[in-house]
Structures are given as structure tokens and as C-alpha cells.
């Protein structure tokens, strides 16, 4: 009967640490948000479930021979999973609205100020002695402001693997909260008249432009910022597969079967980083606060950039589309549209906001490249 005693000694009740209990609650909260509030459920549900699994005392699912450990080693340590997801995102992205109005790319650039402003914030927090973030940590936290899950995970896995769980959770949570975070800032920084600005119809973009564009992006990356090549390369591959229309079956698989498989795995692997030691500390509070500020600053910077551009161009752009530059595709563009409609119920900004929206994906991948090069 000593074996039975062993069974009791091995049971969760006998071994549960308060930290594990708290983390299981965190996992349940993530699952609740995913299901009841529809916060990015594709990622937050597997992340939340992975958090539960990895904190089961004694199950060792994140241990050396545990499933979550294997998945994490294969997919996150190598960077393979976020890159494959980025390929799928590329295959789902339509650059048409951006090609019809390329200057909206600059809005996607401005919104990245959220990323770099946050780095300053993180180092300031450290200098105040509240937390202890290295510059690498600060950079990985800042990228939350890119509002791009795979980019955040890729950068965090390279610069601050210990913070990966908190960073991924913050990134996806705030992406889900975009409809709540952005509108007040948008209204604060624009006048009623600005919000009513009607934008002229976008021109039709030819198929050839859409096919050549990902190659142009890749060419610029190759020439000026090779450290962004993994992220933007896979993104452009996905987009080229889609737009070329000659490999539809590959493009379809990249968007569906492959992306879904990798999403489940990535979620579990991120969840496996959610151990009590890594998550339950002041640093996590700091990450959540900084992530939120990154979204706010990025939103503001995008809008202010639009207002700045209006000083120099003849046909004005509606500054509301600037906030879409943070990416969080397509949520942020929908928010622009919605706030625009509130000001003028004939003012459809969705297509115009898609330009800065997808530009923001490129923008934060470029920012990621700068960081990877800086610390490389």
C-alpha cells in the first residue's frame, strides 16, 4: 500500500503551490475572456489552456519530457511557429487599399512610435527601481505596441524568452481591447470637423501591382534591413502565394490547415511559458502597464501624423485612419470606420483605414528588425 500512499503524495492537492493555484486562475481568466468576451479566442484559449496544463503540480507537462516542452522547443525556441503564422497572415492580407494610396504607409510608420516610446517607459521604470528590465527586455516589451501577435512572440523569443508569456498575453489582450482603448484617444485628438472629412474613392489596383509589391518589400528588406528578413520574408511569401493565384492550393493551406495547426501549438507553447516564477511578479504588472501605454501612444502618434500630413498635402486625409496604423488587423480599421460613421453617417472609412492598417504590420516588422539588429 506504499504505492497508494505515493499516489496520494503525488496528487495535486498535496503539492499545489499558491503560485500554481494563482496561475491556474490566470489561465481560467484567459479562457473566460476568450470564450465569453471573444478576446482573440484563437490564441487566448490555447494560451489559457496551456497555462492550466503547465501549472498542474507534478504533471510535468512543461518538463524535459513533457508535451508542452517539446512543442515549445520545436516551435518557439527556433522561431518557426511565429514565422509560419506570419506566412499565413501574409496570405490573408490584401495590400490593395494601401497600393491605391501609398502615402498611408507613413501613418503605419508613425504608429510605431508606440513601440519605441514604450522602451523609454520601461527603462524609466527600471531607473525608478520599480522593476528590473534590461534594454533587451524593454525592446521586447515595446513591440507589444506593434499590435501584431506573431511579431511580438518572435521578438520576445529572441530578446527576452523569460517574459514571453506575459508579453504574448498582453499583446493579444490589448489587440482584443482595441475597440475600447482607441476611440477616446481618437476623439480627444481630433475635432468634429476633422472626423467628418470625407475621403475620395480609392482607385482600382491592378493584379500586377499586387503581385510585384511583396517582391518590392522583400527587395528593400534585403538591401536595407536584412534582420527583418525572416518576418517580412515569410509575410511576403504568403502574400505572393495569394496574389499570384497560381498556387491557390498552397495559399489556402497556409491560411487554413497549416495556420490552424501552428496556432494550436503556438498557443500551448506560449501557455507553457506561464509558470508562476515567470509570471507572478512586478515585472508582469510593468509589462501590462507598458503594453497598454504602447497601444495608446501608437494610436495617438498615428492620428497626429495624419494631422501633420494634412498640413502638406492638398486633398486632406481623415485623421481617424491614422490610428489604424498600429495594425491589430482588421480591428483597428473597423474602429476607424465606426468612429468616422459616428461623426458622419455617410463617411465610410473602412477601405481607407485598411491602408495604414496593413502598413502597420510592415512597420512593426521593420521595428522588430531594428531591434534584432541592435542586439544581434
Amino acid at each position: 500500500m506504499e504505492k497508494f500512499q505515493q499516489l496520494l503524495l503525488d496528487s495535486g492537492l498535496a503539492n499545489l503551490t499558491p503560485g500554481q493555484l494563482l496561475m491556474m486562475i490566470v489561465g481560467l481568466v484567459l479562457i473566460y475572456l476568450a470564450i465569453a468576451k471573444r478576446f482573440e479566442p484563437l490564441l487566448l484559449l490555447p494560451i489559457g489552456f496551456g497555462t492550466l496544463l503547465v501549472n498542474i503540480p507534478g504533471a510535468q507537462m512543461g518538463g524535459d519530457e513533457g508535451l508542452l516542452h517539446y512543442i515549445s522547443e520545436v516551435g518557439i525556441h527556433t522561431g518557426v511557429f511565429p514565422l509560419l503564422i506570419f506566412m499565413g497572415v501574409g496570405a490573408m492580407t490584401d495590400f490593395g487599399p494601401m497600393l491605391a494610396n501609398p502615402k498611408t504607409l507613413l501613418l503605419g510608420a508613425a504608429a510605431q512610435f508606440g513601440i519605441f516610446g514604450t522602451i523609454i517607459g520601461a527603462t524609466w521604470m527600471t531607473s525608478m527601481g520599480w522593476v528590473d528590465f534590461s534594454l533587451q527586455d524593454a525592446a521586447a516589451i515595446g513591440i507589444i505596441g506593434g499590435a501584431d501577435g506573431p511579431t511580438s512572440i518572435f521578438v520576445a523569443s529572441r530578446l527576452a524568452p523569460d517574459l514571453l508569456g506575459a508579453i504574448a498575453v498582453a499583446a493579444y489582450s490589448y489587440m482584443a481591447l482595441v475597440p475600447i482603448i482607441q476611440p477616446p484617444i481618437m476623439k480627444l485628438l481630433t475635432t468634429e470637423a476633422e472626423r467628418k472629412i470625407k475621403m475620395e474613392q480609392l482607385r482600382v489596383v491592378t493584379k500586377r501591382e499586387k503581385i510585384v509589391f511583396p517582391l518590392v518589400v522583400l527587395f528593400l528588406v534585403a538591401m536595407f534591413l536584412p534582420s527583418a528578413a525572416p518576418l517580412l520574408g515569410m509575410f511576403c511569401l504568403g502574400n505572393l502565394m495569394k496574389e499570384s493565384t497560381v498556387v491557390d492550393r498552397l495559399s489556402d493551406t497556409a491560411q487554413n490547415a497549416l495556420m490552424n495547426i501552428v496556432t494550436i501549438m503556438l498557443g500551448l507553447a506560449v501557455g507553457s511559458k506561464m509558470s508562476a516564477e515567470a509570471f507572478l511578479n512586478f515585472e508582469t504588472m510593468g509589462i501590462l502597464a507598458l503594453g497598454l501605454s504602447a497601444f495608446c501612444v501608437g494610436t495617438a502618434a498615428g492620428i497626429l501624423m495624419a494631422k501633420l500630413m494634412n498640413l502638406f498635402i492638398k486633398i486632406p486625409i481623415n485623421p481617424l485612419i491614422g490610428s489604424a496604423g498600429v495594425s491589430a488587423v482588421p480591428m483597428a480599421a473597423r474602429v476607424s470606420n465606426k468612429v468616422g460613421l459616428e461623426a458622419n453617417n455617410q463617411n465610410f472609412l473602412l477601405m481607407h483605414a485598411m491602408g495604414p492598417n496593413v502598413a502597420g504590420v510592415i512597420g512593426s516588422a521593420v521595428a522588430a528588425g531594428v531591434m534584432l539588429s541592435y542586439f544581434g
Partner: protein
Amino acid sequence: MSELMRDSLDLMVMGMGTVFVFLALLVLATTAMSQIIRRMPGTNELENAQTAAKRTNNNDLTEVAAVAAAVSKVHKG
């Protein structure tokens, strides 16, 4: 100001600079690309070419169908 703060300011300047330069270059490159492509002969007919390509595929199927028809004729005849 601490070393860390100075480094982070450096990173911000360098980062935002690179992002703006890169995306500005992309604006130029994209605009140039669109200009060139829209002036290229054949761009407008491209969709038609695509349709033609699909038609070719259909022809292939027509071919198969013709074979099938011939085959079933022989079988029944």
C-alpha cells in the same frame, strides 16, 4: 541620465528613424512600381489573360470530356 536611459533613447531615435526611412523608401518604390506597371502594355488586358489561362484549363477539361465522350460512344456502339 543613466546609461540605460541613454541607450534606450538611442534605440528610439535609431528605430523610429529606420522605420520612417524604410517606409518612406517603400512609398517611393511603390509609387514608382505602380507608375511603371500601369504604363506597361498588357496590364489592363491582364485580367483577360488570366481568364484566357483559365479557359485553357477548361480546354484541357473539354479535351478530357471529348475523350470520355468518344470512349463511351465506342463502348455503347
